[in-house]
């Protein structure tokens, strides 16, 4: 089989893994090799689906002895199979890297023969890259559940980031859909990696030049929409993972039907992209905006509102806190205003030291007022010419994705709101619709 065919098969099977970032480690070249790594990560292209392509994301092989129902590579699926040799893959990575196509390699694999053998093949590939080519670029390696810890340790010394995908957000779902796996078999390597990370931190304090174990930390991925688990469960699980295992990232992946298994959504179910998007927004709020999971959702309201983003939803449920004065509000509160992000909040803090901020001033420094205007006052005043009509407010707060979603998927449910007619919308209706946590 030629290289073209292998690449096609092995990237096709890897593409459902959503993590493609090359972030989390800043490394200068050692001057005698090739490559470096930038902490912010670099996307080298965007595929036709709009996703960032930073790494050569492939499987070493798509042969697998397991049979997880949600996975294209499951043993029982009739599919062309292929495997790279470690040498082939290392060469390909370097040649792509030289041409500035990629930041590095994302290496995952089906389980061929057994977990240990698979892990050894991955290690061989990375050893060629790191030791022979002296490659200083980014490497993300998937830990193979069930592999010996000594092997995981070796893999981790070669990689920048490791991940173990939890895939299904509950034990019940795992039992049904991944009979060969259990939550413990996934959490065990995750626990091992976080334990090693902690030890390594201590080693690095003692000996500055101690070798680094996965310096960009570990991440995981969960599939959204393959199982009945709610947004609330997923968000809680991910914040527990952040805390317990010190994960750097939890990725969400909208489920693409790849199987006719009756336990899974039917083959024509569209992937829940908006839901995935809302979860990322919420995850962002937890990591950078000081929100807690229980501020966004609770037992009674376990799903995000598809119409508006989670921050906006939160704000509308806490109108007693608004409007806030931009001249004096603390940073944490500015961050809670819909439409104001970290950059805008920081600019406001800087600019207001130099003088009183007006709406024109806010615009000048790049704060987008479309949504924020309903939640702030500047220099003691509401925005000029802003009369809060419910209609206008509704239109500016609902996200474009929300609108598209509504027009596609929820026609009956929201018909009474006459979103798309000029009929005036009543105050109560607007509030009810936007505040809804569903």
């Amino acid at each position: 089989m030629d290289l073209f065919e292998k690449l096609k098969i092995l990237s096709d099977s890897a593409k459902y893994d959503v993590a493609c970032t090359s972030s989390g480690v800043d490394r200068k070249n050692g001057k005698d090799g090739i490559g470096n790594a930038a902490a912010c990560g670099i996307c080298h292209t965007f595929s036709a689906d709009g996703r960032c392509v930073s790494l050569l994301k492939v499987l070493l092989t798509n042969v697998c002895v397991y049979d997880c129902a949600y996975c294209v590579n499951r043993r029982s699926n009739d599919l062309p199979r292929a495997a790279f040799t470690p040498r082939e893959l290392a060469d390909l990575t370097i040649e792509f890297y030289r041409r500035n196509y990629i930041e590095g390699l994302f290496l995952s694999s089906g389980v061929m023969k057994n977990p240990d053998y698979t892990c050894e093949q991955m290690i061989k590939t990375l050893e060629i890259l790191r030791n022979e080519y002296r490659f200083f670029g980014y490497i993300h390696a998937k830990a193979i559940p069930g592999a010996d810890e000594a092997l995981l340790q070796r893999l981790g010394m070669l990689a920048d980031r490791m991940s173990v995908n939890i895939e299904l957000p509950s034990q019940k779902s795992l039992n049904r859909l991944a009979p060969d796996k259990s939550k413990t078999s996934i959490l065990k390597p995750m626990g091992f990696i976080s334990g090693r990370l902690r030890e390594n931190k201590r080693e690095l304090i003692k000996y500055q030049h101690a070798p680094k174990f996965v310096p960009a930390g570990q991440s995981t991925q969960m599939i959204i929409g393959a199982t009945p688990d709610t947004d609330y469960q997923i968000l809680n699980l991910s914040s527990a993972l952040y805390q317990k295992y010190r994960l750097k990232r939890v990725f969400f992946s909208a489920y693409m039907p790849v199987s006719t298994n009756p336990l899974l959504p039917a083959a024509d179910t569209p992937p829940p992209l908006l839901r995935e998007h809302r979860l990322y927004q919420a995850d962002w709020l937890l990591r950078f905006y000081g929100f807690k999971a229980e501020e966004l959702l609770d037992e009674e309201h376990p799903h995000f509102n598809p119409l508006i983003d989670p921050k906006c939803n939160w704000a509308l449920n806490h109108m007693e806190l608004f409007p806030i004065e931009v001249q004096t509000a603390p940073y944490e509160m500015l961050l809670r205003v819909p439409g104001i992000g970290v950059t805008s909040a920081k600019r406001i803090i800087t600019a207001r030291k130099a003088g009183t901020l007006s709406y024109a001033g806010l615009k000048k420094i790049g704060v987008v007022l479309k949504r924020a205007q309903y939640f702030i006052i500047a220099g003691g005043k509401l925005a000029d010419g802003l009369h809060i009509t419910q209609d206008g407010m509704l239109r500016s707060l609902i996200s474009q994705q929300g609108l598209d979603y509504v027009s596609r998927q929820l026609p009956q449910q929201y018909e009474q709101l006459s979103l798309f007619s000029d009929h005036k919308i009543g105050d109560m209706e607007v509030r009810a619709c936007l505040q809804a946590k569903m």
Partner: protein
Amino acid sequence: MFAGKNVVYEYDGTFDGFFSCVFESFQNKETPVDIRRFDQPQQTLDPARFIATNASHAARVQKAIPQKIGRGAGLLVRDAFLTFLPQKELHMLRFLQAGFAAGPGILRNLTDDTVCTLQKAQRHLYNESHRFKQFIRFSATEKVLSAVIRPRNQVLPLIAPHFIDRYPLESFLIYDETNGMALVYRPRQAAIIPVDNFVMDQPDETEQMYRQLWREYYDTIAIEERYNPKCRMSHMPKRYWDNMTEFCRPARPGLRGAAR
């Protein structure tokens, strides 16, 4: 503030030349209506005065900036000089006049017109530089890697350290077609030099193979059910596509992901 004067400063287009203009303005306590490179077409009827580049004048101005206005101001001026902001020299002069009068506080005055204009131009420069770190594509021959870019700003000085650190053992060349400059590197030696014309070598077989492999990869990883050209476009505007391997293909109709 200095009085406006009906005169246009002309200079040689160098950074030192610009600082010599600044020196001239402060010495005469005057603000010209424009500062432009001597080889650029005249926009106004005002009389022109050629300001000869004077290294010691330039050095005095350059030294005073970090001392009186702060390091950030020095950086802002250096960066602004690389941008394609119309009348950038005049904006920079105004900024320096205000800065020498007000001191370091000027940089926090984000709503000031001059500061705001220059910072916006600086951000554009940074964004564009980042885009080229992302989207430059090298072609490899046996000996060198080469790439062509068509930036709006002069990004070479900003992206040079990144690529030098990335490929320390390679020889490479990045040709900036817009500004007629090239970054040329061979191990441990780098220079940005004026280059009039540069034509890439025809790709050899190996190069063609890797290009084809990359296109194959690019087409395969897109998930059909998630097709979202708008999102792709916002992250990767069309103007970068011309020099990107995945969009330059031997004509074959109907390929997904191809420029459409």
